[in-house]
């Protein structure tokens, strides 16, 4: 095979782009991986250097296929949206793979070093003497319309059709986002807008170039056993359409195509499309058990780079839908990535995690946000390590004999109805328990942690741990979901089981200790963010309520549960902004006209109670059951 037909200057823009993107992605990846904590590196090492790597590898492959190519999670949100993404990603991937295989079969693996070869295959593999291209020296015997060629040209056209369908859908999406389940338009920076343009553009010159090539070599393509109008249904027919006018400009189309794709590669590492390569790394790290944690490390950075800025989180955020505040993860993470995090975007958030539950990439948004808050708070306040030393003088609660300890929590002290109802229910069920914070309570520390002061919360955590251990209880019941998460995730309690009161009451009811009569009232259960999405408790309150009343599910239930707007994770939203969120959430919860709105968080209860003009009774689940 002669050398000259596998090179033409027009491949240079593409090749340069490919080299650039390889170096740039490697640079960003290495920069991120260098920031990994030693224990994270050890975790990865121990996984890679052991037989565990085999199952990890296969599950990684499976998830990359399902999420990065098929976009399973986006299908779950909206069929059209998923279909659009799948068409583009999976279609493009398959075109690349099938063209590579066709190259290897036709001219052998020896040409694999010419990385540009497969992408311009239709030009390089052309019948002898066909006009249009600057060169045409393909030996006739290499270019034969065999069954293999027919199959691969068909596959190419099939997957190209898929990509073009996806592109067409993305144009529809631009004008009718509602069809795709998107309501608010995400604001993208100019680089993101540019790369979307390039992506839209680069398949058009390719279609023109291939169409012209097909038109110019029409006789040779027609020599196969199947008519080219059938096996090359897209490119041949398109070529017949444009050929009479444009066939002599074929080489220009190859040049434009090469430029577009080269520019796409150069722009990619600086735009949101960086998620395409990085997500593959992210899934691998996750399979090795490394993900964004309490500190901002390399794992967090990989997650930030993996944010596709798809904007699914924007519609989920109640601050956007109810109060028109622009702090959604799309914008927050963009700031983090560009090394200019925005203070307002970092702090004005309720950490309700509605965004996180819908993120198709599964980014640990709240963890990254809290780590960012920690960074902002560094040096903001005067260091005072002894600020809670006064807790040392506090009398330790005497070690009791009860198996169960009840920790009401600060918020519950402000809604004493819940506390009274809990005491009544526990007495009724004959539970021997000790109230840990009846006299003087210490905050669990979670409010400080959520506001970005994890270090300062340590003293509160150690004091509470002492108290809980001294009580000798084996089960710790709490009425506040914030405390529940704090005890579960931040404390080391040596086997003391932490349960929220909904779980405990449900257990008592299951065991027959707590008898519940069905009142027949119509109730809607509101999933508190901290209990549901953060704590993962959905079923117990429902099981309890279905025993005692006619339970109706609101439109936004479980993972879609609404935030009341008063979360302790926020200090920067104004009272009015919080109230707007609360009113909006209450309206949506009461759409089905229940008699009682039941919730399981003292903070949510208080917030909804405060909404002026509400026409429903708001109760904690324990109050409802006690009645």
């Amino acid at each position, binding site marked *: 095979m002669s050398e000259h037909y596998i090179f033409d200057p027009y491949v240079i823009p593409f090749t340069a782009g490919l080299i650039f993107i390889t170096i740039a992605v490697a640079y960003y990846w290495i920069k991120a991986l260098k920031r990994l904590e030693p224990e994270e590196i050890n975790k990865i090492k121990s996984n890679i250097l052991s037989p565990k790597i085999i199952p990890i590898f296969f599950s990684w492959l499976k998830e990359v296929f399902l999420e990065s190519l098929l976009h399973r999670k986006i299908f779950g949100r909206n069929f059209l949206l998923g279909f659009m993404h799948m068409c583009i990603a999976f279609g493009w991937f398959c075109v690349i793979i099938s063209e590579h295989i066709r190259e290897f079969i036709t001219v052998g693996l020896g040409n694999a070093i010419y990385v540009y070869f497969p992408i311009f295959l239709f030009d390089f593999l052309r019948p002898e003497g066909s006009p249009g291209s600057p060169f045409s020296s393909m030996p006739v015997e290499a270019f034969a319309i065999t069954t293999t060629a027919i199959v691969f040209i068909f596959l190419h056209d099939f997957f190209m059709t898929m990509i073009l369908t996806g592109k067409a859908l993305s144009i529809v999406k631009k004008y009718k986002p509602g069809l795709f389940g998107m309501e608010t338009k995400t604001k993208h920076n100019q680089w993101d807008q540019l790369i979307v343009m390039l992506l839209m553009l680069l398949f058009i010159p390719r279609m023109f170039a291939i169409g012209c090539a097909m038109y110019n070599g029409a006789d040779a393509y027609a020599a196969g056993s199947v008519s080219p109008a059938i096996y090359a249904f897209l490119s041949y027919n398109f070529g017949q359409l444009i050929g009479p006018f444009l066939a002599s400009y074929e080489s220009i189309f190859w040049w434009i195509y090469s430029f577009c794709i080269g520019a796409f590669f150069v722009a990619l590492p600086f735009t949101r499309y960086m998620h395409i390569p990085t997500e593959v790394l992210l899934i691998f790290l996750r399979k090795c058990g490394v993900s964004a944690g309490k500190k901002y490390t390399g794992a967090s950075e990989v997650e930030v780079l993996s944010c596709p800025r798809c904007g699914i989180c924007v519609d989920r955020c109640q601050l956007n839908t109810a109060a028109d505040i622009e702090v959604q993860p799309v914008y927050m993470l963009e700031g983090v990535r560009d090394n200019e995090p925005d203070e307002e975007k970092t702090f004005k958030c309720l950490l309700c995690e509605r965004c996180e539950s819908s993120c198709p990439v599964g980014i640990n948004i709240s963890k990254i946000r809290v780590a960012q808050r920690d960074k902002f708070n560094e040096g*903001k*306040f*005067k260091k*005072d390590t002894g*600020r*809670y030393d*006064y*807790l040392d*003088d*506090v009398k330790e609660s005497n070690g009791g004999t009860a198996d169960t300890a009840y920790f009401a929590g*600060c*918020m519950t*002290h*402000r809604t004493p109805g819940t506390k009274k109802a809990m005491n009544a229910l526990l007495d009724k069920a004959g539970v021997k328990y000790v109230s840990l914070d009846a006299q*003087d*309570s*210490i*905050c669990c*520390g979670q*409010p*400080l942690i959520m*506001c970005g*002061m994890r270090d300062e919360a340590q003293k*509160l955590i150690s004091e509470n741990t002492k108290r809980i251990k001294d009580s000798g209880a084996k089960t710790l019941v709490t009425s506040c979901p914030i405390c529940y998460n704090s005890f579960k995730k931040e404390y080391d309690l040596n086997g003391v089981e932490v349960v929220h009161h909904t779980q405990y009451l449900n257990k008592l009811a299951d065991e027959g200790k707590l008898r519940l009569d069905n009142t027949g009232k119509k109730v809607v259960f509101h999933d508190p963010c901290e209990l549901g999405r953060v704590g993962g408790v959905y079923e117990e309150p429902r099981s309890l309520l279905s025993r005692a009343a006619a339970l109706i599910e609101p439109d936004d239930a479980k993972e879609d549960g609404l935030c009341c707007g008063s979360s*302790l994770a926020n*200090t*920067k939203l*104004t*009272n009015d902004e919080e109230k707007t969120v609360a009113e909006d959430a209450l309206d949506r919860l009461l759409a089905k006209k229940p008699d009682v709105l039941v919730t399981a968080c003292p*903070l949510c209860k*208080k917030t909804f109670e405060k909404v002026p003009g509400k026409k429903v009774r708001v109760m904690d689940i324990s109050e409802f059951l006690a009645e």
Partner: protein
Amino acid sequence: MTTDVSKWPFGVNPDNQVDFDETDKTPAMKVKEMEPSLKLCMGCGTCTAGCTAGAFTDFNIRQMFLLLNRGRNEEVEEKINRCMLCGKCILGCPRGVNTRNVILTMREVLKK
């Protein structure tokens, strides 16, 4: 005839007048600028009544606001860190003062 008041059989509070030449009111103004809802405070003391830290020490949120307004910034600086940020105060406030942010803002302003 002079009388030595200190020998009287009851305590007399030290002079508590605000001396406008001596006091520095800039932190108070700055805090109110950063968290305007503090201006709504009417000093009812609901915040203090339920305070978690107040149960253990003489920490008193209303006093923090008063001391700041009177320019007694050192005293605020000394006591303010006892707050646990638990949020009981904000739940009780009848005027909608964002008390937690007031505390954080005070700490931030007084550090400067």
